[in-house]
């Protein structure tokens, strides 16, 4: 196909035909791509500086446009009717009451937990510190399961920090940029997390496989699990605090897998657990 040919929407007429790209340049770029893949897969060159700069520029551009374009959500808010406001107010009041109740319950559990901890002579973990962040880009593909969040070195986030919601673990921080970080989800093929399963505290490693089902690896033979047995982090290796819920056991045709407690494709807000149990 060549430029200069007459064209309409439905037909494309060409005057002459010649090769678009020379064979030499084509072969050169194919070899260059294969070399880059090899370098990246084998970690021969660390491309983190390039990645950081590109990710920063992309999200800077996005922020620039989203702050400068008219905010449709704000515009919509100004048209909310009085009736909707009353309903919303009622709902918010109920939520506050419920949260107060949960707060009281959790306080009671915390006191009870501290007493039991002392009884067991366990060392308490380091100061727990959460940062609530927003997922700004869902970069999950069929081959990688990662998301990008709107906090990075500026909020003291470090590589390896646990990412979780109120339901349970969703992954860990994998790359940290200045104002953004990338979280590797537990469903990613490269995610391997030491866990314990059920009431019997059976040790295992969970591994993602890029689907919604998570594999359970390195189990002793003849172990049996029940459906809906809870799987939680063991804390082995020092990366995660022990006891963070991850998912529940599911059985299907004699195969055992884990269903994550969170819907990993719909995560919007997450907590990053900083200054966690890293004592190695």
């Amino acid at each position, binding site marked *: 196909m060549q430029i200069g040919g007459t064209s309409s929407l439905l037909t494309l007429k060409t005057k002459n035909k010649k090769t678009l790209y020379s064979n030499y340049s084509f072969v050169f770029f194919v070899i260059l*791509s294969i070399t*880059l893949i090899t370098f990246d897969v084998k970690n021969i060159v660390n491309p983190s500086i390039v990645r950081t700069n590109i990710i920063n520029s992309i999200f800077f551009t996005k922020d620039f446009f989203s702050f400068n374009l008219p905010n449709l959500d704000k515009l919509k808010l100004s048209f909310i009717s009085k009736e909707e406001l009353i309903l919303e107010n009622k709902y918010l009041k109920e939520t506050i009451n419920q949260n107060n109740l949960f707060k009281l319950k959790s306080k009671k559990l915390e006191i009870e937990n501290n007493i039991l901890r002392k009884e067991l002579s366990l060392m308490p973990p380091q100061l727990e510190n959460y940062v609530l962040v927003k997922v700004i880009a869902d970069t999950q593909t069929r081959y990688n399961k990662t998301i990008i969040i709107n906090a990075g070195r500026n909020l003291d986030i470090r590589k390896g920090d646990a990412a979780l919601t109120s339901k349970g673990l969703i992954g860990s921080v994998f790359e940290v940029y200045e104002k953004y970080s990338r979280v590797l989800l537990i469903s990613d093929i490269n995610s391997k997390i030491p866990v314990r399963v059920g009431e019997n505290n059976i040790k295992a490693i969970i591994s993602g496989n890029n689907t919604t089902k998570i594999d359970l690896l390195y189990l002793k033979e003849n172990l049996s699990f029940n459906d809906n047995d809870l799987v939680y982090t063991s804390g082995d290796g020092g990366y995660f605090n022990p006891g963070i819920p991850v998912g529940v056991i599911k059985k299907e045709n004699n195969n055992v897998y884990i269903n994550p407690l969170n819907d990993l494709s719909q995560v919007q807000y997450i907590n990053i657990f900083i200054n966690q149990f890293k004592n190695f």
Partner: protein
Amino acid sequence: MLSDIKYFFKISFPTLSILFLIFLNLFLSNSFLDFGQLFAFQAIFFWLLYLPKFLPLYIILILGIIQDIIYLSPIGSTALIFLLLIFLFETYNKFFLEPSFFELFISFIVLFTIGMFAFWGLNSLINLKFLLININFLYKILLNLLFFPINYFFLHLLFKKLNLNKKL
């Protein structure tokens, strides 16, 4: 001065439109409209037909690398698939003289499907295991095929409005 800006805008328009599709996909992917990593091929296909000289191979390589950085794929993998598809496009180009839109659509379907499977094959090779092909994989192919005529229409409209077919 103004004519210089206009000139640079025109010659970079194909690249800008591909970049736009990459960003659109990135920021739409939280919703059900996740087109996958080969979404940008829709624009590449269009510009290969109408303005191939403004889409040199190094631009394809750079755009592929940007995609890989965003999606954490091995750097160079998307570019390699784009190059494979361009090679196939060239081969196809030699066989057809004056393709109608329907023929173009069919060739896009064939090329895009080959691209999706090639990408799956490449990722399976990199991970040294066969990755699963599920319904989501087919959904992404279908979604891209459904949106191709819309993209084609808008790109053609811009192509005409901006007089990109005139010699620069």
